[in-house]
């Protein structure tokens, strides 16, 4: 399957990566090459094989319901590109 320019635009939008029209042809070519490479997997019969998501065979561990964290708004906001008082500030979102 090759990735055409429309697809690149769609993916770039989903990934929120701005791409100019000028970048589209090259990206389409590169991504197509990679997709072409990974597509060799399709020659393998994997019917009935359970997907492996993690190499860890443990059970999930949990925490107790105790408040142990937070209370440092200053640290949380320290690296913010823009803030207003105790809030992060972003360009206005219109719902």
């Amino acid at each position, binding site marked *: 399957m090759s990735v055409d320019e429309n697809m690149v635009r769609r993916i770039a*939008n*989903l990934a*929120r990566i701005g791409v100019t029209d000028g970048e589209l042809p090259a990206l389409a070519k590169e991504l197509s090459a990679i997709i072409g490479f990974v597509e060799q997997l399709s020659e393998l019969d994997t019917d009935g094989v359970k997907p492996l*998501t*993690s190499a*860890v065979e*443990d*059970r*999930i*561990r*949990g*925490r*107790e*319901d*105790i*408040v*142990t*964290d*937070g*209370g440092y*708004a200053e*640290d*949380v*906001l320290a690296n913010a590109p*823009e803030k*207003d*008082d*105790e*809030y*992060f*500030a*972003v*360009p*206005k*979102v*219109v*719902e």
Partner: protein
Amino acid sequence: MAENKNLISGATGDWEIVLGLEVHAQVASKAKLFSGAATEFGAEPNSQVSLVDAAMPGMLPVINWFCVEQAVRTGLGLKAQINNYSVFDRKNYFYPDLPQGYQISQFQQPIVGEGAIEIDLADGAVKEIGIERLHLEQDAGKSLHDQHPNMSFVDLNRSGVALMEIVSNPDMRSAAEAQAYVKKLRAILRYLGTCDGNMEQGSLRADVNVSVRKPGDELGTRCEIKNVNSIRFIGQAIEYEARRQVDLIEDGGTVEQQTRLFDPKTGETRAMRSKEEAHDYRYFPDPDLLPLEFSQEFVDEIAKDLPELPDEKKARFINDYGLTPYDAGVLVGEAENAAFFESAAEGQDAKAVANMVIGSVFAGLNKADLDIADSPVSAAQVGQLVGLIADDTVSGRSAKEVFELMFEDGPDQGKNPAVIIEEKGLKQVTDTGAIEAAVDEVIDANPDKVAQAKERPKMAGWFVGQVMQATGGKANPQAVNKLVMLKLGLE
């Protein structure tokens, strides 16, 4: 399936509303689902945010096991399938109050599968609403859009708070059914203690899926009204949206699948203005979290201390106390109300207690805008008062006065009804001599009425009223009635 009586009429005939709800219920936990930050409502902005909640680089989620227990508990309360193996997935999308760029949720394998809730319909019938699933997920933060002309502000205090998303089947056919469903679900959650059900604070909110169709047709295209946060608004939003869709279709248009917002100020819904690109959330299993597994013993342990739920309690109230289904239904709506009633009814005539609780107590609390926990009249006092009526110490009419005095006194005064009756001289007169004198007096003073009463025996009631008035309501009404009938020669 029974015939739907809730059709709405349009120019081209009747339409049926089809409703499914996704309720987000905040787990009543102290700490968040994947971090140790607090969940308390109303804190200073960004003060209840851990590095995990702010999605700092390299931060990892660790699950709060209490939240898992609450989800299982809720699943059991919904008589639903509990899945001992479930998976946390990432739902990927960009929004400023979603710090990770994904919400940790459960997609293909939720912790709870199919269940059901029964709702009471207005005509007394019971309807079962199917539950499709319940899954655990993170809440997002809060964006404030109205503080600045061209900026939005983000507070992450809610970011990562544990939610149970409870998805119903599209089984509801009217706004009233949807409202009854939410009320019932809320009651169950509160009985279980897994969610405080506080809709004003956003602990419980509903996404309402609305579509319309001609009865018998295929399902129509649905619109999802997001985050409706009161039962009244749910009703308004549905009424408006269903009408909008019917009008749209009848005017030759088609309903577009979209996400809409309800504006309480106008009572209308409107499409969200953000770009409605085809959603592609790219769900995949969260590689930071292993699958959620627990044993059947874990589930059994939770099942063991499940409280009595509203339906069971209602059945018991009907069977054990002889209450009407309606009264029982009203009393079990809130666990606290039911407990108040049961406490008051101890050793008393339960039906009389139910009447007083539903009548005087609820009316008084409503008027004073108080919760039952803060009731100025205790359950014990209600029980005593009912007892004092039953043993003829006080008349029903005087009892109302006694109740009001107790209510005004407030909880600190704490005067028991017997004391008030004594102090205010409201003791019922059962002394036949005194009552007889009063009856004679009224009869003597109204010869014309006596004549009329002989023609129309119903007039006797007038005499009873006069006697009661003359005795300041203290006379035993049965005794008065008996004497009046006797003296008028009607018996």
